[in-house]
């Protein structure tokens, strides 16, 4: 693991899941999961719907407690250093784009001038400066998602968690956001854990992918993707990407 870990930025947090178990009523969603994520890693978690990948992400975000087992962080992070991007943008519709992007800082009690300065910067990073005064109802789906991304990045998180964030978007928009996300990860030293059911998205974005089983949240495959660190649209036509996708697909299909 060390060789790969040193080739990626290392300002993120590392996390360690030990015997993590999660049960809903009678259903064992995750039986006993062990997973170590290095600082600065870009990890994709793949699996069919209902396999517990969103549950896993919520536990990593400390929005849900494991029923057994432990999740530890290195260094031990404060709550605010984690950011979460949901499947849909989930903006506050009564707030402007700027006030949406500044929300996390507002909740953390950061003073006004500083939180707007950082929100401006964050929106600039997702090329939305010109839309700062708009309301979410006036934005396209892709723009909303970019605001959501800006909101997540505004706290300079060391751990970024994404739950199928671009699933509802059209493919072109999705490709553009993929590129943008990958670029943001390269610029900012953070750990990214990305849940998806899209094999192509997982292969294109991540440095490492794990495939979960349909039942019990067992890791069927844990693979470091053999792809160049620079990911542009050219990579989409690269046969190496196709090979990685085939490996992930085989793992998903085997039961």
């Amino acid at each position: 693991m060390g060789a790969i870990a040193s080739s990626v930025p290392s300002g993120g947090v590392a996390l360690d899941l030990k015997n993590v178990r999660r049960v809903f009523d009678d259903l064992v969603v995750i039986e006993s999961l062990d997973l170590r994520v290095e600082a600065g890693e870009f990890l994709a978690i793949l699996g069919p719907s209902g396999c517990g990948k969103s549950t896993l992400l919520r536990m990593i975000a400390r929005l849900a407690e494991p029923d057994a087992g432990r999740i530890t962080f290195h260094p031990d992070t404060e709550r605010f250093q984690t950011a979460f991007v949901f499947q849909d943008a989930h903006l506050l519709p009564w707030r402007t784009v700027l006030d949406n992007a500044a929300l996390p800082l507002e909740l953390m009690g950061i003073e006004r001038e500083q939180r707007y300065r950082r929100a401006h910067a964050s929106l600039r990073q997702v090329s939305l400066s010109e839309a700062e005064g708009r309301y979410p109802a006036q934005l396209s789906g892709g723009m909303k998602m970019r605001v959501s991304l800006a909101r997540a990045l505004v706290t300079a998180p060391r751990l970024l968690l994404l739950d199928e964030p671009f699933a509802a978007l059209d493919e072109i928009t999705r490709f553009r956001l993929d590129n943008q996300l990958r670029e943001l990860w390269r610029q900012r030293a953070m750990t990214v854990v990305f849940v998806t059911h899209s094999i192509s998205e997982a292969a294109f974005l991540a440095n490492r992918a794990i495939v979960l089983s349909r039942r019990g949240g067992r890791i069927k495959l844990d693979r470091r993707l053999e792809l160049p660190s620079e990911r542009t649209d050219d990579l989409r036509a690269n046969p190496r990407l196709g090979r990685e996708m085939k490996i992930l697909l085989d793992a998903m299909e085997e039961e």
Partner: protein
Amino acid sequence: MHALKPLTGVRGSEQSRGRKGPLLAAIPALVPFVVITSALELAVRGGLVRAYLVPAPSSVFRAMVESRGELMRAMLTTSASALLGFFLSTVAGIGIAVFLSSSRAIQRAFYPYAVFFQTVPLIAIAPLLVIWFGYGTRTVVASAFVVSIFPVIANTLTGILSTDPALRDLFRLYGASTLVTLFKLRFPAALPQILTGLRVASGLAVIGAIVGEFIGGQGLGSVVDIARTQQRVDKVFAAVLLASVLGLALFGLINLISYVTLRRWHASEQA
């Protein structure tokens, strides 16, 4: 709309279209009014309808002009009571909804009573209100309050409870307190529903005030009651009409508040 630079995928240009002047827009609603009043006038004059049962619109108008001083004073009195009752049910209704929303157990314990309370007929408890509050304004306000509070509770509670769970997670993630979450997330998110509750409550508050006045004296309710005993059907109609105008005015006020607060972000005000 505001002057904004065109961006890709922007709605909004369609919003400026199809907005006629407010006077022009009122014409369709005026047509039935003119037709029905004229028909009624003709029916009464032609002897098809007995004037002591249904007065001609013209005599209602005459009664309104003749008793304008009395009717105006009565309307002001009723307005004050209805508004006060409505205000109290807004404040108490939202407060109770917040309390009920605080836990599922509290909801299970108290919400059935709120529903039960709603089914008690006002006419039946109005005499009780007189016993408790005496003749006069207090009984009238209490009556307006009692009938208008339930829709505020029910709608506010629904609004608060249907806050997007993802957004609640987001607020938790950044360590927002319950109070901050209430004011920055739950209230604004529930605002469209709260306003729906207030619209219903505004009409009910006027009805409650009139019923209260039947028994507690004063205002338009009392005018209706006295005119009835005097066989002055025209005056009854005049007072009823003014009570409706009052209800409409209150309804209009809520709509205005709704437009001002929601137009930028909620679909209901963006048609």
